[in-house]
């Protein structure tokens, strides 16, 4: 991991690594606006189970997506130690609930591998690549377009 951070060349991408349950995921750093601690959300009626509610982000109403629930790893019981990663994806601003932000890494394009054809798994639908790290861990790159709530009335 350290070696990967040494150089940052043109064919590298910076990613923010998150831990969800005991798995490592990552998202492109460009979409991340800020990382903040958990604060209680206001429950949205008729929302899908993975949308925990909405929070006030300096006057904007931002929905929070429980990544663990979305990836089929079970619903998170949030504590103040959990984090909300605010991402801007297109015109939408959304909060992603994760256990912890572990790192910011430069990842070689060459190191990104396609998702292996495993048995069908809820998680697989939401990741674009897997990235093996030198310390033996594996990062799963999240596909935000699939994870975020659609702006049309989802769940109604």
């Amino acid at each position, binding site marked *: 991991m350290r070696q990967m951070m040494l150089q940052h060349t043109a064919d590298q991408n910076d990613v923010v690594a998150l831990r969800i349950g005991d798995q490592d995921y990552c998202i492109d750093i460009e979409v991340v606006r800020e990382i903040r601690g958990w604060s209680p959300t*206001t429950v949205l009626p008729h929302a899908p189970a993975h949308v925990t509610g909405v929070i006030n982000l300096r006057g904007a109403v931002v929905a929070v997506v429980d990544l663990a629930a979305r990836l089929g790893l079970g619903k998170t019981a949030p504590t103040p130690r959990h984090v909300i990663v605010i991402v801007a994806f297109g015109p939408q601003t959304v909060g992603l609930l994760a256990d912890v932000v572990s790192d910011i890494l430069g990842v070689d394009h060459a190191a990104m591998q396609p998702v292996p054809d495993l048995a069908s798994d809820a998680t697989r639908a939401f990741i674009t690549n897997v990235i093996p790290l030198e310390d033996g861990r594996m990062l799963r790159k999240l596909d935000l377009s699939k994870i975020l709530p*659609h702006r049309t009335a989802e769940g109604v």
Partner: protein
Amino acid sequence: MAGPDTLRATFFEECEDLLSRLGDGLSLMAEPGETSDIETVHGVFRAVHSVKGGAAAFGLTSVVEFAHVFETVLDLMRSGRLPVSLPAMQTLLRASDVLADLVTVARDGGADPPQMASLLMELDLLAEQGPAPDLIEADFDFQPVPIHIPDGVAPSITPDPVTYAITLSPLAGLYAHGHEPAALIRALRRLGEVEVIADIDAIRPLAALDLSRPGLRWQMRLTTTKARDEIEAVFDFVGDDAEVTITRLLPEPTLPTEAPAPIMPAPPSQRPTDSSPAGSAAAVLPLSATIRVNLDRVDRLINQIGELVILEAVLAQAVTTAGLRDDSDLATSLAGIRQLAGSIQETVLSIRAQPLKPVFQRMQRITREAGDATGKQVRLAMIGDTTEVDKTVIERLADPLTHMIRNAVDHGIEAPAQRMALGKPPVGVITLSAAHRSGRVIIELSDDGGGIDRSRVRAIAEARGLVATDAVLTPADIDNLLFLPGFSSKEEASSLSGRGVGLDVVRREIQSLGGRVTLQSVPGQGTTFTIALPLTLAVLDGMLISVGPETMVLPLSAIVETIRPASAQIHLLGQSGRLVANRGALVPIIDLADCFGFAPIADLDRSVLIMVESDSGRRAALAATGIHDQRQVVIKSLEQNYGSVHGISAATILGDGRIALIIDPEEILRSTAVDSPSAARTAHG
């Protein structure tokens, strides 16, 4: 820096103003029995002329050509060579519609309006009734300038060459807006002989040169046979960006020259006729009392003030939590801030408020076109078009109003022959009025037509299966059937209003603005639609209530009353249906917690029932666990970052910084509607 695009945008904004002034003037002229004031005709002429001038600058040829023909007719009128007759006015009104269309086409692209060719011909025909246009050019357009000279030398009206001394002192804005003094000088050269002297006295040495303060000035001597108007027209678009003086020099060089008269390019309703005291006065241009501001900036300001109000509430809560006394310095200052923030919010919101006039004026045209299409004679009377409402409300009001006007012309107003037979004047009148009433805007649209034919409405509703044949309906119930989706009373779909969209679309659109629409009708005398709208879409008066674990906001406008169920009688109906007796009627109870997916209220007796009423008059009692407060809340969009949620119209931020959802009672009532409008009544009776 202002690029060509912003200049273009400014031109189109100005066009809107000019076209609105044009419409105003024309309707004043068309007023029956009104001998039109010559100033009105002048104003109308100037509006068309300014549109033409601006369009020429942007190379919008079809606008220029049409405006030119239009202007020729108006010119004949203002010189009194063409009488202001009713048929002529109708042509002019239609011409103004086409001009507006042409401007829209020039801005948004598209094909020229189809009526253009026929109107050009009509205008030409009108122009032929007056003398040949060449003649007028020569003597009418000429505006003599008052000059103070000894008796005997009257200001002559001759086409003899006249010499003008013109000075041009550009300000920084001239260059910033992309004007080129050389182009102005070239334009003057087209009018006649020009001598130009560049005045470089004011240019500072290179070391001290400040490019944002141009020093170069020009002094010109123009000898021309053209009218002063045309010289002024050259500087029309310079605006406030340069100091321009035009002074007429008399043929005898010994006579004193007239003092310079400043050019006032905008608004064109003012023109320089007085000669001002010589010298510095020319530099003082009258400033217009309004400024154009990008709407985004206003919205940002409104958002920031909203933040301030929320933050203030957070602070107030912190003070309370800290256990400070109400009369402590901190609490007193905070109260001051609260008051200030509230008044700032009010002021800022008023910036977004605009008069309803533009949208009302558009309805003039809609009425005209609808009348033409149906062969009915209709006049639109407008009252209170200066009433101010939030800009967004105004924009979204155009479609429903258009629909209602067409509806009134098509279904309301009778054909002229029928009206005569009924002893009514042949010209039907639709009155569109607006007024502020207790924090809302009330817009009324009434016609003097035949009113709603209730037996036919009922027959159609029954035929479409919208209402049971044996239902007991009051006249008001029947009128409300018109708002049902899929109801279109015209049996053969007319080309005008019967397009498969009915009044239900109107109602939905008004509701999405947080408003309500109701109607009253008197057979033989006409129908009145009443629209009640909030003044702004930015704040809302709401009641804070507890629903399950959450705090929610219920708009005050929908609430009729609140009841303690313990004192009222609750009846069970079927397995889960519950009704409460209220003022002689049985009203269904809707458990909000259940509705929003929380655990249903176990003990209704301990809840609070909030009686709400929908537009169609349907009532329901919403059950909540408690009522906290009544306050004005800032409306925040939920759709921007998430999407729409059933039964929720928007969100707001509470004093503790948390988000509360704003309930849409209309949608909740609609979704739980299992009965016809009469169900509650029949259940009772």
